[in-house]
C-alpha cells in the first residue's frame, strides 16, 4: 500500500495560505466583503428592519409582522432575537472578510501591485468601519478584532466604546486617503473618499464631536462632487441610481424574482435582490407601515402650514394613489392590516420609499439600490454641526438648501410653525427637517440614539423606552454562550 495516497488536498478550493497573493485574488476578496454587506443578515433584509423597528418611523402593518420583528418594535426583544443576531453576525462577517484583505494585502507586498493593495485596503477599512459603527452604536462596546482570527481560541472580550470609536476613526482616516472620489460605471458602488468622509462625520457626531464632524462635512461640500437632485424621488427608485446626490449605495440587481435568502449572501450566481418591496409595500406583506407620529410630522396646510410637504406623497402611498406605472389605483382592501390616523382620519397608508410598486408588473423582490448615504444628509448634518458650534445662521442656510430642492420647494425657515431665532428653535427645525427628509432611510434610529445620549431629546420618542435597558441591544445569546471572554457577565444592562 502506498501511504502517499493518504495525503489528499481538496482539489476544489485553494488553501488560505496560497490565496490572497495576487492582484486578482485581493480584488476578488474585496468584492467578497461587499457580498456580505448585501446579505439578508444585513442590507437585503434584517438591517433595514432592525434600524426601522428601533426607530419611531414605523409601526406594525398588521398581523403579518413576525414575532421577532414585533418584539423589536415593542421593546420586548430578548437575547435570542433573530434580527439582533442577524445584524451582529452580518457586521462581523464583514469585519472578518475586511480583516483578511487588510492583513493579506499587507503581507503580500512582493506579489501585489502597491496601488491595488492600497485600494483594497482602503475599501476594506471603510467597510470594517461601517460595520464597527453599526455595532458600537447599537450595542456599545463590542469585541474588537483588528486582525482576522486564526484559531478557535481567538474570540475577543468587549472593548470599551471609546476604543472602538478610535479604531473606526483611524480606519476612516486611512480610507479617505486611499479611496478615489468617483469610479467608472463598472465600479459604481465601491466606497469613495466622500463616503469615508461622510461616515466619519457620522461617527464624530455620534460622539458629540461636532467640530471634527464639521471638518469632514466641509470636505464633502467643498469637493463639488455632490449636489441635490431636483427630484426627491430619484433617490429611491431603480432608474436613477448613482446620481449626483448619492454618496454610497448598496447595490442590488433585478434578476427575475430570485432572492438569495442566505444569511451571508454567498453564491456566485442567482439572487442579487432585496426583499424590501415584499416586506414593506402595501400590496406585499406590508409588515410595517409609516408610524402615525411620522405622518403627523409632515407639514400640511390642514395643520396650518403654508404648504403641504411634497415629500409626504413621495414617501408613502395613500388609498387612491396610482401604482403599477399608473395603471392601478390602490384600494383599502389591497392594503391588508392596520390603518393609520392622519388629520384625525383613519386611512390606509403604506410605504412607497424604496418599494417597486411604482413600476409596471410589480414583482416582490427587486433591485432598488439601498442609498446608505446621500448628500442631503451631509447638508443636514452640517446644519446640526453649525448650530451646535454656535453658527445658527449658517445652520438655517443649510436647512433651506434642503427645502429649496426643486421638487420640494417648501417655504424656507423661519416659518410660522418653525421659528429659528434661538439655538433651540433651530435645533427643533433640524430635528424636523432630518426626520422628514430622511424618513424611512434607516437614519432615524441613530439620530434618536445620538440625541438621547447627548440629552437633546425633548420627549422620548419610544413609548416602551426603559432607561438603563433600551439604549442598547442585547448581546446575542449565541455570542454569550460561545464567547468565553464575554459570558453572562458581559451582557448589556437590563437583559
Amino acid at each position, binding site marked *: 500500500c502506498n501511504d502517499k*495516497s493518504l495525503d489528499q488536498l481538496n482539489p476544489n*478550493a485553494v488553501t488560505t495560505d496560497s490565496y490572497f497573493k495576487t492582484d486578482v485574488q485581493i480584488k*476578488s476578496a474585496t*468584492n467578497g466583503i*461587499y457580498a456580505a454587506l448585501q446579505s439578508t443578515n444585513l442590507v437585503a433584509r434584517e438591517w433595514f428592519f432592525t434600524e426601522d423597528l428601533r426607530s419611531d418611523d414605523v409601526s406594525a402593518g398588521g*398581523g*403579518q409582522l413576525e*414575532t421577532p420583528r414585533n418584539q423589536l418594535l415593542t421593546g420586548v426583544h430578548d437575547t435570542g432575537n433573530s434580527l439582533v443576531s442577524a445584524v451582529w453576525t452580518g457586521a462581523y462577517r464583514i469585519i472578518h472578510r475586511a480583516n483578511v484583505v487588510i492583513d493579506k494585502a499587507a503581507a503580500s507586498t512582493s506579489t501585489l501591485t502597491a496601488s491595488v493593495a492600497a485600494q483594497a485596503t482602503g475599501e476594506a477599512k471603510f467597510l470594517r468601519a461601517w460595520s464597527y459603527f453599526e455595532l458600537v452604536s447599537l450595542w456599545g462596546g463590542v469585541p474588537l478584532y483588528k486582525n482576522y482570527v486564526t484559531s478557535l481560541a481567538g474570540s475577543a472580550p468587549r472593548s470599551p466604546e471609546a476604543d472602538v470609536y478610535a479604531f473606526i476613526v483611524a480606519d476612516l482616516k486611512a480610507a479617505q486617503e486611499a479611496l478615489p472620489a468617483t469610479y467608472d460605471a463598472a465600479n459604481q458602488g465601491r466606497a469613495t473618499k466622500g463616503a469615508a468622509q461622510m461616515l466619519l462625520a457620522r461617527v464624530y457626531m455620534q460622539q458629540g464631536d461636532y467640530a471634527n464632524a464639521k471638518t469632514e462635512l466641509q470636505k464633502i461640500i467643498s469637493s463639488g462632487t455632490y449636489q441635490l437632485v431636483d427630484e426627491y424621488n430619484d433617490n429611491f427608485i431603480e432608474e436613477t441610481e448613482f446620481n449626483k446626490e448619492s454618496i454610497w449605495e448598496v447595490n442590488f440587481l433585478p434578476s427575475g424574482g430570485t432572492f438569495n435568502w442566505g444569511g451571508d449572501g454567498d453564491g*456566485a450566481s442567482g439572487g442579487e435582490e432585496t426583499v424590501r418591496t415584499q416586506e414593506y409595500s402595501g400590496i406585499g406583506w406590508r409588515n410595517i407601515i409609516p408610524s402615525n407620529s411620522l405622518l403627523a410630522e409632515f407639514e400640511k396646510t390642514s395643520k396650518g402650514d403654508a404648504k403641504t410637504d411634497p415629500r409626504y406623497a413621495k414617501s408613502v402611498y395613500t388609498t387612491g394613489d396610482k401604482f403599477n406605472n399608473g395603471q392601478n389605483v390602490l384600494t383599502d382592501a389591497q392594503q391588508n392590516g392596520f390603518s393609520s390616523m392622519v388629520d384625525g382620519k383613519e386611512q390606509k397608508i403604506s410605504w412607497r420609499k424604496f418599494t417597486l410598486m411604482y413600476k409596471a408588473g410589480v414583482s416582490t423582490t427587486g433591485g432598488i439600490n439601498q442609498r446608505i448615504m446621500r448628500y442631503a444628509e451631509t447638508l443636514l448634518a452640517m446644519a446640526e454641526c453649525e448650530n451646535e458650534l454656535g453658527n445658527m445662521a449658517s445652520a438655517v442656510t443649510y436647512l433651506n438648501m434642503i427645502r429649496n430642492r426643486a421638487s420640494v420647494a417648501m417655504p424656507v425657515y423661519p416659518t410660522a410653525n418653525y421659528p429659528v431665532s434661538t439655538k433651540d428653535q433651530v435645533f427643533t427645525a433640524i430635528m424636523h427637517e432630518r426626520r422628514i427628509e430622511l424618513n424611512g432611510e434607516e437614519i432615524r434610529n441613530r439620530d434618536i440614539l445620538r440625541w438621547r445620549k447627548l440629552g437633546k431629546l425633548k420627549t422620548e420618542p419610544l413609548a416602551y423606552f426603559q432607561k438603563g435597558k433600551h439604549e442598547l441591544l442585547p448581546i446575542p445569546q449565541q455570542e454569550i454562550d460561545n464567547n468565553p471572554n464575554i459570558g453572562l457577565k458581559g451582557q448589556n444592562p437590563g437583559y
Partner: protein
Amino acid sequence: IFTLSVKAQNASADKSITGTVLDEKGSPLVGVNIQIRGTTRGTASDARGAYRIDVPNGNAVLVFSYIGYKKQEIAVNNQSTINVSLEGDAGSLEEVVVVGYGTQRRSSLTGAVSTVTPKELTALPVPNVTSALQGRVPGVSVVNNGGPGSSPIVQIRGIGSINYASGPLYVIDGVPTGDLNSFNTNDIESLEVLKDASSAAIYGSRASNGVILITTKKGGRDSKIRISLDSYVGTQSAWHKVDVLNRDQYVQYAKALTSNAGIPTPGRLSDLNQPIYAGATQTFAQTETNWQNELFRNAPIAQHQLSLSGGNAVSRFFASGSYFKQNGIMKGTDFERGSLRLNSDHQVAKFLTIGQTLTAAYSNQRAEPSADRSQLMHAIRMMPYWPTTDPTKVGGFSAPTALDGSDPENPLRALTMDVTRTKFLKAFATVYADVRLTSFLKYRFNYGVDLGFTNGSTFNPIYNDGYVQRTSATVSQVRNTNISQVITNQLSFDKTFGKHSLSVLAVAETQKVLSTGLTGSGTRPNNDLDVIQGVSNPSITSTRAETDLISYVGRVNYDYEGKYLLSASIRRDGSSLFAPGNKWGNFPSASVGWRINQEGFMKGMPQLSELKLRASYGRTGFNGINNYAWQSLVQADATAYPFGSANSLGSYFNSLGNTELKWETTDMVNVGVDVGLFNNRITFTGEVYNRFTDGLILAVPIPNSIGYTNAPVANIGSMKNWGYEFQAGYNYAKGDFRGNVSANVGITRNRVLSLATPTASIYAGQNADYGGFDITKTEVGQPIQSFYGWQVDGIFQDQAAINTANAVDGNDKTLYQDKAAPGDIKFKDLNGDGKIDANDRTYLGSYLPKFNYGANFSGTYKNFDFTLYLQGVQGNKIYNGTKVVTQGMLRLFNAGTAVLNAWTPTNTNTDVPRAVSGDPNNNSRTSDRFLEDGSYMRIKNLTIGYSIPVKVLGGLTNGVVSKVRVYVSTQNLLTLTKYTGYDPEIGSRNGTLLRSGIDYASYPQARTFLAGLQLTF
C-alpha cells in the same frame, strides 16, 4: 431423536449414495445441504426430499445441514441408501453467523451479534432493508423519515456523534457501501448486526456506530433449477388527519384573532360572495376545500420479483430481477426501483473456488419539494374557502392574497408543478477467490466495486398564483459519480490441536473512493423545456474528491474444549480524511466467553441446552466527516456583488481549518448471557453495555463575532451511551400447529459528558413558524438535544391575576410577563425573580425513547400461516410542531378546531389561550404545552397466508409447481399512541440531526394493505 434406516449393500470404493431427508413428521425437506465432510463437495435435497451424492469411499462422512434443524453427520460405511430424519432445532444458537471477514458458529461467539432472518426482512413492503429492521433487533433504533425512497434514521446503541449522521457501517458481501435503497431485500441471505465494539472493531475507524453485515443469496447444489415468483400489490393511505376549521368556523376564528389584536378583519371575510376567480360562477362562500384530503391520496404499492437459482457440486448461481413501485400518500411523491442480480461461485480446482456477486439497480425518486415549510403545514394553514385550482392563473393554481390577510402557499401548486427527481444508477460487484493452501490455511482475495451515478433534475416552472410569482423557470441538473473500490487480501488459519482450537486471521485492505460532481442551472423565459437549453444566468460548477483508507487487520480466536472462548483483534487504519500526523489510528478489541453448560458439573441439568457468559471490550472509530474538513480553504470566486450593473465575483473564507483533527474514538464494554432451555426451544439473550465516545468530532460552537460562518470541526466533547438489551424466543409445536414467539427490548440512555467549553451549549430547532424560540439544547450532563423551554403555569383569568404576578417580586412596576393580558398563558418563574425571561427555561424531556421493543408471533396450522408483528417505543417526547401550527395562533392562518375553544372572558375553563394575532405574550413559545408523549405501539405487520398443499399442487400442475402461497398483509394496521400529530414516528426534517423529534408537520407513515402471491417452480 433422529432415525436412521440402513439398507446393507456390498461395499464399494467409489459409489453413489441416495436417500431422502424428512422432517420429524415424515414430510420431505427441500434444499437440505448435504456435504461430504472435509470437502466442498455437496448437494441438496430436491422437492421430494430426495438426494444423490457420489462419495469417494466408505470412510466418507455425510453432513446434513438445514436452517432451523440440527446438523447430522453420518458415516457412509457400507450403506448406499441413507435416509435421514432431521430434528428441528427450536433455537438458532447452532447456526453459523457472518462476522467481519469470516463466519463463526453462534455457540462460539463472544461479542454481541444479532441476526435477522430473510423472512423477517421481507415481511414488510419497504424498499430499504433498514426499514425492515425496525423493532427486530434490541438496541437498534430505526425511525422512518419522509416519503417514498427516503432512507430511515438508523442508530445502534444510542447516538454516536453530535453533528454527523451516526448511522452504522453497511458491508455487503464484504464491501462497505453507503446506500441501501438500491438493494433488493429479497436477495438477502443473511443480515447480521454487530453491536458491541469487539465484533465491530474489526472494521476499525468506521465502526463506532455499529456494523450491519449483509450476505446475498447463492444457489443450491441439488442440480435443480428453481424459479420463484413473488409479487404483491397493495394500497397505502394516511391513517390519521388532524381536525382543522371548516369555512364558517374559520371566518369566526379569523374575526376573533384579528379583532382581538385591533387589526381590521381581512377584506375577503366580509365579502365571501365574490367569484373564486374572474369569470367563475362559484363564490368563495360556496367553496369548502379540505386541503388534507386534497394533499393525501390512496397510493398504490407493488413489487414483482422473479428469481432463478440452481447449481451442482461444482457451480452455483442465483439470479433475480425485481421491480418495486410506490406512490407516496402525499401527491407529487413517488419512488420506483428496478434491480437485477447475478451471484455465482465455482469450484475450479480442489484448492480453488472463485465467485462473484453483481447487482445493478435503477431508482427514481420524486420527493416532496425541499422548502422551509412542509407542504403538510401549508395544507393545514390554507383557507378552507380557497379553491384548489384556478384556470385564470399562470400555472393553474392560486393562493390567498393581501385581501385574505394571510399567506399560506397552495400546497398543490408546489406538489404538482415543482418537480425534483433523483434518478440513481447503482452497480455493485464483487469477485473473490478462495485458495486452500493447506487443510488449515486459506487465502482469500476479494475485490469489490461500488459505482453510483446520480442524475438529479429540478424544474421549477413559471407561475403566478396571484400573490407570489416566479417570473422565469429555473432548471437545474446534477450529475454525481461515485466510485468506491476495495481490495482485500486475507489469510486465515484454522486448526484444532486436541482440546485447543485456534483460528487466526490477517487482512490487508485498501479502499479508494473517487467522486465527481457536475451541477448546472439556468433560468428560462417559458415552461416549454425542462432541460438547460437557451437559458439565461447559466451556472455550472464541478467538484472532485478522493478519499483513501489503508487498513491492516489481525484477529485470533481460541477455544478450549468448546468451553472457554477467547477472541482478540486489532485494526490499524490510515485515512486521508485527517491532517498529517493524525492519519493513523489503532482499534483493538478483546472478548471472552464461558459456555457453562459444557462443564462437567452441569451434566445434571439436561434441560439447560445453552448457558454462556460473554464479556468484551473494544475500541472503534468514527470518520464520517466531510472530505478535507481539516483544511482551511478559500471559497474562491464563490460569491458576487453587482458593481455598476453587472456581477463581479468575490472570494472569502468562512471556515477555520483544524490540523489537530483526528479520529473520534468509542470504547465499549459489553457483557452478555445466552440461555437455551429444552433443546433451545426457549432462548434468552441479555446484554448490558457501556459506550463511551471521546474526542467527539464537533462543529465547535463559535461565537459569531469571530466572523466565520461554518464552525470548524474539532475533537471536543465526550458522550456516554449505556443500556440493556433482552431478546427471548419460544417455539411450540403440537399436532398441525407450529408456533413461534419472539420478543426484544432495548433500553438506551444517553448523556453528554463534555463540550467545547464547560458552559458551551448547542441550541437548535428555532423556527419563526414554530414559536420562534430554540427548541432543543445540548449541554453537558443532559441527553443530547433535549427539549428546552418554558413551563406553562395556567392561564391568566383576569387583570387581577396579572397584577398579582407583577407584584411577586414586591414591585408591581416590574412586569411578570411584558405583554400579558387576560387569557394569556402564565409561564412558571423558575428562578423566582418575578420576571419571565430566557432564564426561566428548563429541560422538558428527551426525544430518545426509554426503550424500544418488538414482538413477533407467527405460526402455521396445516396450510395456513400467520404473522403478527408489534413494534413500539416507550417514554420518548415529541415536540408537536403540528400543534403549534394548529393551536399556536401566531398569525392568521387556518387552524385546528381546538382554537374554537380559545379563552374568552366567557369561556374561561380551557387550556387554549386567547386568540390574538401576533401572539404578543408568546403563548406559542417553546413550552411543555406542545410537548407530548411520543410512545406508541404498532401492529407493524399482520399477515395471513395459505399454501396450496403439495399433493394437490402436484396433481394440478403435473409437478411443475412446487409451491403456491397466497397471502394478505397489512402494515401499520393499528397504532396505539397518545400523540396527537399525524404520526408518532418523527424523523429529522431536512436531515438536521439536532432537530430529531421535532414534528415540523413532517411526512407521516402510511397504513398499507396488500395481497401477494408466491410461486416456486
